[in-house]
């Protein structure tokens, strides 16, 4: 069989089938088009301005390593005029970070970039290993995620840098969109799709230049550029909703490669359809800039192998809560319908005693819309939609030597892993 020529240069032999669209390309053309697409994203979204100092959230993993490599290349090729700095977080997980931090240190030399490592212990007084010791192996992803997000911003602040870029890729974004649909979390659905969070007024902006890049292409790029990265999975527990969404994304990609991008597109469009009452974001603003991202939970940060947040019982917990809600609200309906005159006088947490809620169309249990507005934490001054930011809440609990947030401490070990297996099985059968 004659070798297939590259679809772009038509001369070299095609060695790579592009995961995104199955185009057959040679190595050189693949590397070029991958870089040019990131360049396209950067320029069309006006992500940077000349003279900006940019911190690259670097975990030593493939995504952030590719991001650092590509940004360095583009900065030189197109003279962006950026000052690039590597920023790493040391969660204090023995055996997990040691190797990856070594990778980041080598990257700093290879890319000739300054490196700043910020430790959880210096920021919060707790390493993750200490947190796990205090609260157990379950639910600790919440702590890790909340702490890491703030850590990047705080680290950037220490360096006097106003813009952090992270290695989130298209698969991550698509996964987050499906996950938030499954969890019924519209505010996060709306926020997670924008390429930039925070605006000129916020102390630290965040962006994800790899938002449209397929994970598989990132791996290919790293491989063909022979990048030095460290692949590891976080030692602690995965999370059911994200795990479920992830395998769904993988299956979708198999059936229709464009599906990842199509989900991202859907998410961007849906963000515009989320009622303002839910997000606190005015639709008059550019869709690309969303204000509130301070709670730091909408996405697993790139450094965390599993992107997990709490353990596998999350789906079962939510199921239970939803059922209780439903039961409670159906009882409320029953009462109101028997007391015809009492309807307007009564207050209902769940149903909202508005007249239109009786027309049968709008009457949904749990239709309460929570408004989120951006403020600052009273304790640490960090951006937050709550009075006290999540990190401070968690810290307060930790410092009292017990977790403040109840994150399914009541589920037995065994039960939880059975459930997780079930979820995995469920995902696998859809293959």
């Amino acid at each position, binding site marked *: 069989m004659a070798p297939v020529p590259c679809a772009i240069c038509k001369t070299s032999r095609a060695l790579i089938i592009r995961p995104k669209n199955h185009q057959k390309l040679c190595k050189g053309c693949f590397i070029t088009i991958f870089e040019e697409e990131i360049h396209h994203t950067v320029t069309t979204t006006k992500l940077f301005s000349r003279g900006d100092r940019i911190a690259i959230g670097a975990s030593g993993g493939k995504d952030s390593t590719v991001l650092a490599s590509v940004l360095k290349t583009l900065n030189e090729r197109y003279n962006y005029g950026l000052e690039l700095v590597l920023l790493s977080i040391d969660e204090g997980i023995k055996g997990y970070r040691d190797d990856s931090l070594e990778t980041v240190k080598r990257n700093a030399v290879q890319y000739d970039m300054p490196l700043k490592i910020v430790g959880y212990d210096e920021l919060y007084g707790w390493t993750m290993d200490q947190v796990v010791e205090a609260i157990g192996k379950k639910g600790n992803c919440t702590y890790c995620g909340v702490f890491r997000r703030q850590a990047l911003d705080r680290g950037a602040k220490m360096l006097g840098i106003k813009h952090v870029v992270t290695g989130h890729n298209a698969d991550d974004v698509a996964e987050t969109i499906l996950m938030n649909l499954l969890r019924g979390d519209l505010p996060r659905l709306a926020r997670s799709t924008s390429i930039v969070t925070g605006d000129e007024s916020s102390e630290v902006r965040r962006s994800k230049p790899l938002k449209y890049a397929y994970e598989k292409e990132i791996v290919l790029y790293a491989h063909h550029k022979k990048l030095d990265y460290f692949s590891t999975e976080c030692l602690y527990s995965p999370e059911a909703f994200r795990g479920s969404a992830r395998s769904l994304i993988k299956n979708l990609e198999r059936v229709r490669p464009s599906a990842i991008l199509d989900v991202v597109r859907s998410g961007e469009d849906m963000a515009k359809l989320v009622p303002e009452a839910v997000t606190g974001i005015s639709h008059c603003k550019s869709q690309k800039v969303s204000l509130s991202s301070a709670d730091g939970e909408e996405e697993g940060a790139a450094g965390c192998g599993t992107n997990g947040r709490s353990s596998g019982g999350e789906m079962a917990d939510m199921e239970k809560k939803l059922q209780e809600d439903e039961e409670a609200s159906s009882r409320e309906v029953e009462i109101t319908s028997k007391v015809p005159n009492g309807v307007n006088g009564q207050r209902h947490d769940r149903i909202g005693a508005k007249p239109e809620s009786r027309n049968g169309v709008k009457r949904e249990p749990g239709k309460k819309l929570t408004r989120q507005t951006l403020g600052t934490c009273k304790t640490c001054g960090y951006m937050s939609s709550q009075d006290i930011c999540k990190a401070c809440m968690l810290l307060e609990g930790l410092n009292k030597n017990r977790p403040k947030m109840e994150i399914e401490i009541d589920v037995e070990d065994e039960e939880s892993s059975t459930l997780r297996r079930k979820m995995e099985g469920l995902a696998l*059968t859809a293959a």
Partner: protein
Amino acid sequence: MAVVDVAPSDEPLQYFCKSKCFSQYVTTKAIKRMETYRVRGSIAKAARKLLFPLSFGPSSASLLYILDQHLQGQYDRMNRAAYELIVVHIDLNLEAADRKQSSELLDQYKSRFPRHTYSSLGLEDALLLDNIDWTALNMPEPLQNDSKNTGMDKLQQLVGSMPSATSKTDVITTLLTRLLVDVAKRNCCESILFADSTTRLAEKTLTETAKGRGFSLPWQVSDGMSPYGIGFNYPLRDLLKKELVIFSSLTIPPLTDLIILQGPSSHISASSKLTTIDDLMAQYFQSVEENYPSIVANVVRTSSKLQPLSGDETAACGLCGLPVAEGTDGIDGWGGDQNSASRASEQQDGKHKVLCYGCSRSING
């Protein structure tokens, strides 16, 4: 309303030892959604016409049974009914033998529920619609008389020209909806009653999201006026698919003989070429429904909260007919396209036809 004290719905039979209670629970949930179609006042008004698409699946069979009883109740009490059903079956089969079977089955429905008007159409009748941009599909305009090919041939040709199994299913679904809207309008119906269960609506939410049609969700899963100028209603939106399957076997006599059960997606085979996104999602929610029924319902509640964009300039998609905000049509020229040349070249040819992202993806692969 004796059934509101309802136990968790994950194992219905365990809680509803008597099938009668369970059947009443299902009926109540559906009828609650029909509150706008109660008989009101003493002055007789003309019955409102509602289109009822009958697929022969357990959900639509169950809903027809429930509404038939509902109407009987209205006649018994008031000697008149608030609405009448125009039942239509759209045949998706392209084989003559299958079609014969469908028409026999429809006759069984007629004799079991005789008070309604029945009709049957083949999906190829959608090819006669003049509000679809056939050139976008590389099809001749419907008026061009092409006597050599029958409608069925043309449909086969159209579906066969789609680049993937997902695209085929997608275009069939779209044509089906457009045809139903047309039938509803021709019969002066004010609304279409879709028998989609919660499970089906959750599937639809994620399927449309995965096909890049997130923009269209406010019109795909919510009750109310559709952009086609006909109301869309989903009276079974509070019931799980498995509940309806059980219900259909508990009626007296059971509906089982009237139902064609779709195989449990056994054709999700090793070959991803034949698998569709619709299959994937159906299978996914079938399993979520087993262990986490409330999460299925929560997905639907969530997507029902999305609101259509107001005030933007829109144009109807040439295929699905849904409103597309200006500048958001096609699969090119958005952030994820990352190719600065694509949009410009598309607009140069002068005849810029509007297709939504999802339809454009289906046609172009």
